[in-house]
C-alpha cells in the first residue's frame, strides 16, 4: 500500500510548516493545519485498516535504506499488521479528538503555533514508533516521542518547575531507553539484524526457551518499556509530567506514549516467550505498580495527579496481562484505556479550564449541575476506569484478571493482587467523582466548554462505553489466554469487586456514614496518608540515592580536578625558577666562586668515574 507513508507525513509536514511560520501563522490556520493533518492521517489509517480487515494481509513499505554498514542495514520501512492497525487507529483517532479539543483549550495561549507543532511532531513520532519494521526505527520514534513529551511538559517554560518536570520525564525515561539501547546492541550483535520479523525468526531458531541471552535481551528491552510506560521503578516521572497542558497529558501521558512500553513487549512477544523469567518479571512489575499507584492515587489532592497515578496503575494491568501471556488482552486494555483515560483527562481539563486553572479537588465540588457535559463525561470515564459492568474497561480488565487466574502456579496470586487493585480503582475513581461533582461548591466556573471540547468529550464517552465490543484484529498476530473455562465464582468476584469499591467510595466520601476526616486525623492514618501522598517516598529515595550524589560529584569536580596535576607541574616549574633565580645575585665574587664550584663538580665526576 503506497499511501502508508502519508500517515506519518501529514503531521510531520504540518509540524514543519508550523515551525517555519515562527509563530506568525494565524490561529485559525494553525488550528486547521494542526488538527486537520492528524485528521487526514486518521482517514488514511482508516483506509489502511479497512484493507487489512478485509484481507488480513500484512502490508510492508520500504522507503529507503537508513544506513548500510556491513550487514547492518536498518531501513526506513513500515510493517503493518493487526497490532499496528490498532495502535495507529488509537493514535490518530484519539489524537484527532484531542487536537480538536486543544484548539479551544489553548486558544488564548501566546504559543498556539508552537503547541500544535509539538503535538503534530509527537503524533508523527508515535506513528513511526508503531509502524516501524525494525527496532532501530522504532527507537527513533521512541526517542522522538520522548523528546516531544519533554517539549510539551515544559511547554509553559516560564515556570522553572515545569522545566524540572520536563527534564525529569526525559531523563528518567532515558535511563530506561539506555537499557533498551543496549538491548538493541545485544540483539544485533547476537542475531545480526534488527528487522523485527527476521529477528524473531532468528531468535526462535538460535535460542532455546530459558537461555541466558534472550533473558538478558528481553530484560534490557523491558528496561526501556518500564521507563516509557512509567512502571516501577521508573514511574516517578509521570505524576510530575502533569505540569504540561492537560490535552498533552491526555494524548501523551494517558493514551499513547506511555503505552509504548506495552506495545514494545507485544511487538517482540516471541522474544519474551523465549524468556519466561522476564515474562514473570513483567507480570510482577505490573502487579506491584498497579497496587502501589492505586494506593498513592487514594491520597492525592491534585486532580491530574490522581489521574496520572491511575494511568500508572492501569498500565500495570497491561503489564500484568503481558506477563501472564495474554498479549491480546493487554493491547485490548491499552485501547480501552486510551478511550476512557483520554476522556477523563479531557474532562478534567475542562474542569480546570472552567475553574481558572484550579487543580485541587478539595476546592472544587458540586459541579454536577454547573458543568453537566463534563460531569457525565467524567462519570462515564470513571465507570470505565473502575471497570463497572458493560463499560469498555470492564471487558478488558476482566479479560486480564481471568487470564491471570488461569496461569498455573502464580496465577491466583496475581489475580488476587489485580482484584485488590480493581477495588482500589473503584475507590479512588469515585472518590474523585464524588468530591469534584457532588457536595458543596467551592469555586464557581466562569465559562462552559465550547463545541470542540464538548464534541471531543462526547465522542470519547461513546467510545468508552462501546469500546469493549470492538473485535480487535489481533487473532494470529498476538497470542492470548483462553479463559472460557473459568468458574463462574471467579467471574462474579471479578465483576463485583469494582462495585464494592464504588460502595466504599460512596460511604467514605459521599454517604458521610464513616468520617473520613477522623480516619485521616489519627496518627496512623496521617502517617499512612503522608506516605501514600508522597508516592511511597520513592522520589525522596531517588533524590538521596542518585540525584544528590550526582550533583555533589559534579559540584566537587566542577573546577576540573585533572588540572590539579597540570597546575602542580606549573607550580613546580615556578618553584624551580624561584630557586634558580636566587643564584643570580649579581655579585662578581659569587660568580667567581661558582666557577670553582663547577670545576670541582666536574673534577669530582671525572675522578669518581676514573677510580
Amino acid at each position, binding site marked *: 500500500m503506497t499511501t502508508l507513508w502519508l500517515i506519518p507525513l501529514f503531521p510531520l509536514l504540518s509540524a514543519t510548516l508550523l515551525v517555519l511560520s515562527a509563530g506568525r501563522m494565524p490561529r485559525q490556520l494553525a488550528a486547521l493545519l494542526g488538527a486537520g493533518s492528524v485528521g487526514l492521517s486518521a482517514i488514511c489509517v482508516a483506509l489502511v485498516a479497512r484493507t487489512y480487515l478485509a484481507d488480513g494481509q500484512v502490508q510492508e513499505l520500504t522507503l529507503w535504506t537508513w544506513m548500510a554498514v556491513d550487514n547492518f542495514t536498518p531501513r526506513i520501512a513500515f510493517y503493518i499488521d493487526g497490532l499496528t492497525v490498532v495502535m495507529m487507529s488509537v493514535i490518530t483517532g484519539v489524537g484527532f479528538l484531542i487536537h480538536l479539543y486543544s484548539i479551544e483549550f489553548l486558544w488564548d495561549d501566546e504559543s498556539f503555533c508552537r503547541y500544535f507543532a509539538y503535538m503534530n511532531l509527537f503524533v508523527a513520532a508515535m506513528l513511526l514508533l508503531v509502524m516501524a519494521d525494525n527496532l*532501530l526505527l522504532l527507537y527513533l520514534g521512541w526517542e522522538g516521542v520522548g523528546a516531544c513529551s519533554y517539549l510539551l511538559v515544559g511547554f509553559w517554560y516560564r515556570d522553572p518547575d515545569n522545566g524540572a518536570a520536563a527534564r525529569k520525564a526525559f*531523563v528518567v525515561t532515558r*535511563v530506561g531507553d539506555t537499557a533498551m539501547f*543496549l538491548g538493541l546492541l545485544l540483539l544485533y550483535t547476537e542475531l545480526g539484524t534488527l528487522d523485527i520479523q527476521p529477528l524473531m525468526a532468528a531468535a526462535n531458531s538460535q535460542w532455546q526457551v530459558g537461555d541466558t541471552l534472550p533473558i538478558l535481551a528481553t530484560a534490557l528491552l523491558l528496561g526501556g518499556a518500564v521507563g516509557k510506560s512509567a512502571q516501577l521503578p521508573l514511574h516517578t516521572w509521570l505524576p510530575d509530567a502533569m505540569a504540561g497542558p492537560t490535552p498533552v497529558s491526555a494524548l501523551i501521558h494517558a493514551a499513547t506514549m506511555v503505552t509504548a512500553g506495552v506495545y514494545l513487549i507485544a511487538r517482540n512477544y516471541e522474544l519474551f516467550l523465549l524468556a519466561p523469567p522476564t515474562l514473570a518479571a513483567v507480570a510482577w512489575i505490573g502487579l506491584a505498580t498497579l497496587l502501589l499507584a492505586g494506593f498513592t492515587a487514594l491520597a492525592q489532592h491534585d486532580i491530574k495527579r490522581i489521574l496520572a497515578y491511575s494511568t500508572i496503575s492501569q498500565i500495570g494491568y497491561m503489564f500484568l496481562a503481558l506477563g501472564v501471556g495474554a498479549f491480546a488482552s493487554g493491547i485490548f486494555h491499552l485501547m480501552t484505556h486510551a478511550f476512557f483515560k483520554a476522556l477523563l483527562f479531557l474532562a478534567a481539563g475542562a474542569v480546570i479550564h472552567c475553574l481558572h486553572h484550579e487543580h485541587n479537588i478539595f476546592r472544587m465540588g458540586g459541579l454536577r449541575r454547573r458543568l453537566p457535559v463534563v460531569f457525565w463525561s467524567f462519570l462515564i470515564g470513571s465507570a470505565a476506569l473502575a471497570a463497572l459492568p458493560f463499560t469498555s474497561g470492564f471487558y478488558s480488565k476482566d479479560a486480564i484478571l481471568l487470564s491471570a487466574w488461569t496461569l498455573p502456579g502464580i496465577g491466583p496470586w496475581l489475580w488476587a493482587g489485580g482484584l485488590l487493585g480493581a477495588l482500589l480503582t473503584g475507590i479512588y475513581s469515585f472518590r474523585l467523582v464524588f468530591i469534584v461533582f457532588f457536595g458543596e461548591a467551592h469555586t464557581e466556573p466562569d465559562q462552559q466548554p465550547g463545541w470542540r471540547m464538548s464534541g471531543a468529550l462526547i465522542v470519547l464517552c461513546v467510545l468508552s462505553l462501546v469500546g469493549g465490543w470492538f473485535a480487535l484484529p489481533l487473532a494470529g498476530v498476538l497470542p492470548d489466554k483462553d479463559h472460557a473455562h473459568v468458574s463462574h465464582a471467579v467471574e462474579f468476584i471479578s465483576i463485583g469487586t469494582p462495585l464494592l469499591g464504588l460502595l466504599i467510595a460512596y460511604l467514605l466520601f459521599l454517604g458521610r456514614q464513616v468520617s473520613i476526616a477522623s480516619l485521616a486525623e489519627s496518627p496512623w492514618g496521617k502517617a499512612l496518608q503522608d506516605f501514600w501522598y508522597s508516592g511511597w517516598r520513592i522520589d525522596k529515595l531517588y533524590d538521596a540515592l542518585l540525584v544528590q550524589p550526582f550533583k555533589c560529584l559534579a559540584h566537587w*569536580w*566542577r573546577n576540573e580536578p585533572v588540572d590539579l596535576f597540570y597546575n602542580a607541574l606549573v607550580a613546580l616549574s615556578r618553584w624551580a625558577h624561584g630557586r634558580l633565580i636566587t643564584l643570580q645575585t649579581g655579585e662578581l665574587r659569587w660568580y667567581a666562586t661558582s666557577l670553582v664550584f663547577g670545576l670541582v663538580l666536574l673534577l669530582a665526576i671525572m675522578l669518581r668515574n676514573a677510580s
Partner: protein
Amino acid sequence: MSMVVLIGLLLVGGIAAWQLERIDANLPRWVALATVTLALLYLVSVIAEIPAESFKLTPDPGDGDSWLLHLKLAWIPRFGISLELAMDGLSLLLVILTLLLGLIAIASSWSEIDFKPGLFQANLLWTLAGVCGVFLAMDLFLFFTFWEVMLIPMYLLIAIWGHENRSYAAMKFFIFTQVSGLLMLLSIVILAWQGVATGGELSFSYFDLLGLHLDGRLAWIAMLGFFLAFTVKLPGFPFHTWLPDAHTQAPTAGSVLLAGILLKTGAYGLLRFCIPLFPEISMQFAPVAMGLGVAGVIYGAVLAFAQSDFKRLVAYSSVSHMGFVLLGLYAWNNLALQGAIMQMVAHGVSTAALFMMAGALQQRLHTRDMTRMGGLWQQAPRMGACAMFFAVASLGLPGLGNFVAEFLVLAGLFAVHPGFTAVAALGLITAAIYALWMMQQTFQGAPDEQRQMDDFHGREMLAMVAMILALLWLGLYPQPVLDLAQPVLDGLHGVVTPGEHLAQTMTAGTGQ
C-alpha cells in the same frame, strides 16, 4: 597539483584579506568568504573530474597511486622528505567538512570583529589551510609541519581576539599541543630511522613507513608519541583540560573552528597514522585507549553539567563526544570505525552550531554566564528553537547525525567489549542531563522583562538552517558519508588486525 592549489588558495586568500583591510575594513570578510567558496568550488571541480568508480575502489594504504589523488614532489632529499599529498575518501570527507565549517566560521564572526578584521580573517584562512594540509599530507614531516602550522594562527585568534582570560587559555592550548607535538616528532623521527635500520632509505613518507616492524620498547615509545599528540588534540581524558579554557576564551569563529575541525585532526591522526603504523602495539594498547574513551565520555558529561559558562559546557560536551570517537577507533571494526567517522562529522556540525549560539548570546548579552540568562525564548524564539534542536542533537536524538554515530560506535564496540559499551552508554543519560539543563538555564525559565535582545538575523539563521539540514541529512540518510569512507576502511582492515583477535595477538605478543 590540485591539492597544492587548494591549500595555496587559502594561504593567498589569507594574505589578500590581511592586506585589503587597508582599503576597507569590510573587505576582508568578503575576501575570506570568497576564498573559501572558491576553494569549495575548486574542490568540487576537481572531484568531478575523478571517475565515479574510483570512489568505490579500495585504496591500498601502502600505495598512494591507488588513491583518488596523489602528488609527490621532492623537497628535502637529505632526509628523504618530499611534498607528498594524497587524498582518499576519508581525506576528502574531512576537507569538505573543513571548508564548509570554514564558511560557518566566517559567517559567525561576520559582525563580531572590529579590531584588525583583516588579520583575523587571514588567521582564519590560514588555520583552514593548515587543517586541509593535515588531512592531505602523506609525508610525516610535512604532516607535522601542517600540524604545527595550524596552531599558530589559532593561537593568534585566541590570544588577540579572545575574551578576558585569553592569555592563559591561548598559552595552555599551545603548550599542550606543542609538547605533545614534539613527542610525535620524536616518534616520527624514530620511525624514519627504524626504516634505515631495517635496511631502507631514510624516508618520511607514510607509504614507505607503513608496515615497518619496530621491536619492543621502541615501538611502544613511538606509538605513545603519536597517541599522545592525537589524544591531546582529540581531546581525550585526561589531556583535555586545555579545551574548556581555549573554547571559553576564543572568539566565536575560533571556537567553531576549534571544535568543528581542529579536534577532528586528532581523530584523523589516530585513524590514519597511530593505529595503522603500529598495528599490533595499538591493538594491545586498545583496552587502555578505550578506557580513556569511556572515562572521557562520563567525565566530560559530568563536568558539562557542572558548568555555568555556556561555552565551557559545550566544551566539556565535546570531551564527552570525542570519547566516543576514541572508543570507536580502538574498537577497530567496521561499524565502530564508521561510527567514529560519523561522529567526527556530526559532532563538527552540532558543536559548531552550539558555539555559534554561544557567540551570538555573548554578543547580545555580553556574558556567557548561564545564571544570568533564563527565559530567553520569549525574546528570541528563533534562537531558542535552534538551541533546542542542537541540544537534542548533542544528546543523541535518533534521526540526527550524532545518534547514527553513537549507535554505530557502540554497536561496533559491543562486539569487542560489552563492559565498556555499558558504561559508555551511561553517557547517553548524562548527555541528556547536561543538554537539557543548558536549555533550562538559558532559554527556559522566567524571562527578564527588562532585557532587550535581538533574535537571529537572516545571515545567522541561514547558517543555522544549513547546519540543521546537515544534521538531519546525516541522521536520516548518512549513506553518502559511509560510502565515501568505506573503501578507505576496507584498505585499513588489511593493515590492522581487527579487535576481535585482540586476545590472540596479546598471547602471541607475550609468547615471543
